């Protein structure tokens, strides 16, 4: 089973995939190094308020309205954004893949019921769903992650079901049935792993969306106010947009780079997977 290695190899041969991987690696590095480079609370008041960027060596990107270090916020914000993005993607992929596999494998009434639930979730825009959920449940990091996953799990569910529908007719599944494996075991051990790769390709898109939704929530004041996120930095900066635009631009660039990286990686991944399928 060297399919994953082959996929990785193909990914590394596609320029988009390499660029995406590089950008994301950079972000991951920033996120991981944040606690070492900028120990302590990035929301702490560190210096004179509204120091412009590139004027004080202690604050290379300046300070905000209350005198908080923008560079520290940027690094810690990368942590929050990536954490939210990855966690939301993980939750929605796991939930979606499970629901999709069960629906596809069981068929019949169970399939109908589950798919109608998926339809119900899909009719409501993901952002609205997240907005409503956070305003009811209160703003904290786990709630925000769940809220985003709530709108994102339907994509993986549909894709997983479609894959499962084709896989369950394969010979090895029939063989598993014949040797008397429990249906749940077949579904989870034989079908699901093979249905997963295309679903995983969706993960990159979900991460990108999750980062954007989290920022939008923070921008509207519905993020966790006790951690620094790029969205909340932009919202803060918006008050002084005319006099200190860098406060909004700096985290905005962070967002652009993240989402760009994620989409490039997704592009590369889907190319790599497509060429794997194309081969007999």
């Amino acid at each position, binding site marked *: 089973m060297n399919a994953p290695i082959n996929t990785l190899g193909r990914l590394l041969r596609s320029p988009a995939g390499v660029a995406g991987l590089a950008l994301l690696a950079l972000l991951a590095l920033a996120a991981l190094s944040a606690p070492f480079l900028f120990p302590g609370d990035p929301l702490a008041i560190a210096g004179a308020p509204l120091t412009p960027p590139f004027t004080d060596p202690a604050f290379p990107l300046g300070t905000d309205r209350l005198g908080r270090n923008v560079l520290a916020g940027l690094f810690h914000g990368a942590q929050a954004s990536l954490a939210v993005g990855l966690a939301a993607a993980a939750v929605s992929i796991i939930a979606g893949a499970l629901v999709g596999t069960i629906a596809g494998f069981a068929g019949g009434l169970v399939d109908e019921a589950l798919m109608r639930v998926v339809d119900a979730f899909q009719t409501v825009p993901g952002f609205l769903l997240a907005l409503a959920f956070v305003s009811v449940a209160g*703003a904290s990091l786990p709630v925000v992650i769940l809220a985003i996953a709530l709108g994102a799990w339907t994509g993986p569910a549909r894709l997983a079901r479609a894959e499962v529908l084709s896989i369950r007719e394969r010979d090895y599944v029939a063989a598993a049935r014949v040797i008397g494996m429990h249906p749940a075991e077949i579904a989870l051990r034989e079908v699901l792993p093979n249905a997963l790769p295309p679903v995983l390709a969706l993960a990159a898109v979900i991460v990108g969306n999750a980062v954007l939704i989290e920022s939008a929530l923070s921008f509207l004041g519905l993020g966790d106010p006790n951690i620094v996120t790029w969205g909340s930095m932009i919202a803060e900066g918006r008050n002084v947009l*005319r006099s200190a635009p860098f406060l909004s631009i700096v985290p905005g660039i962070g967002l652009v780079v993240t989402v760009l990286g994620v989409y490039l990686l997704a592009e590369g991944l889907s190319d790599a997977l497509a060429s794997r399928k194309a081969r007999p």
Partner: protein
Amino acid sequence: MNTISLSRRTLIRGSALLLVSTALPPVAFGQSGSRLIVAADSEPRNLNPAIVASNGVFFIASKVIEPLAEASFDGEGGLAPRLAIAWEGSDDGLSATFRLREGVKWHDGQPFTSADVAFSALQVWKPLQNLGRLVFANLEAVDTPDDHTAVFRFAKPTPFQLIRNALPVVSSVVAKHIFEGEADIAASEANNRLVGTGPFRFAEHRPGEYYRLERNPDYWGEGEPKLDEIIFRVLPDRAAAAGALEAGEIQLAAFSQVPLTDLDRISKVPGIEVYSKGYEALTYQLGVEINHRRAELANVKVRQAIAHAIDRDFVVRTIFLGYAETATGIVPKNAPEFYNGDVRAYPFDVDKANALLDEAGYPRKDGGTRFRLRLLPAPYFTETRQFGDYLRQALAAVGIDATVVNNDAAAHQKAVYTDHEFDLAVAPTVFRGDPAISTTILVRSGTPAGVPFSNQGGYENADIDALIDKAGETVDTTARTELYKQLQVLVAQDLPIINVADWGFITVASSQVKNVSNNPRWAVSNWADTELES
């Protein structure tokens, strides 16, 4: 060929012009010389100032419905006559006599008489109005010996000092013939189709767009009003007001609709003036409300430590950009009649705060944290939210780990004032000219749950309660003032609430607008003398 293409071009040009003209607001076609366009940030559900005595309502309604007297910089006792021309309280505090202005007409042509005042006081201010309920709690009857005299009779002595100080806020007179016979005055349709005696008539309201007020030609003030029309354009986005002013779409933005951070820039724009005067009688106070049900916060040393941990100068300088004053207690400095600065002070001192917390029996544990708190900043102002962020950091410096909980307005009110689900809250309370109107309620015990901006922290202090009750029935002005000065000493000692800063708002107007900010409640006064120079 050439001529055809030319005519086509002209046609396109002509139609483009037509298109542009439809996009222009109708406003642009009037005589802009006498039409004042003002930014409004809210559309109150009930626009009747006799029922809802709040600044959002007054901002629009005070031009239509007038009080008995208005606050004034140079008038006697800080008041200028409006519908009343003279007032006097009896020595026993059981009656107050008002001589009313003659020759005043309601906007529908009916004469204004003492019957309107009696009706407003007994049917509206006392039973329905948020502040009148307190001020007129003991009002029993209003005698009307003639059409231009109203005598208020009280069941218990009511200090005339309080009535006088409250007049601009609580005494908006509504017409008896409009509301008489209504089963439920608070829900009446007439509350949003105002009929008053003021310099402007209520013309129309387009929800989400604008309010239009037009000149009252029969106004009692000679040569007033100076404007033909006032348009309140609804601009809920605060950031939009500055742009609209610069573009000349509006001529005035009050109540700091232009964010403080934009003032420095906009004050340099030619043709635009920034006024920080005109809000002296409606001082907002930035305070930290405390839930005394928490064992840690019930300890006065902890409260004093928190007071020492807050750098008031930093707050004034950074959050309010200098447009505020540091506070020493529950009465602001710009209420000189009552202010007492000779109270225990809490200068910024982190070491002292740490020492007090150690003394109180809450040492730093392993992580350097003494205990955890929930901190709920009120969402109404950018400044209250920012102060919440600052306070969290200030508390962290003394080892108190505060978790900020952000709520919308409705959820915040419920959490703090009804459910008491908070440890510390940041509140923008208002001082309204007399401590008995909306200030003593912040520290006196016994207010039922659900009353916003009252003592909902479970604070009880028999001495403070007794002092407030005594002041409530002291008729002699000097003695009553002295009691409130003592109250400030007690409050500063025991800190049921921690006051940080007092701030007024900023008005930004085109320099064409004249007579701006010429009284201490200017934004919510009648604007009869406001002029627009072309």
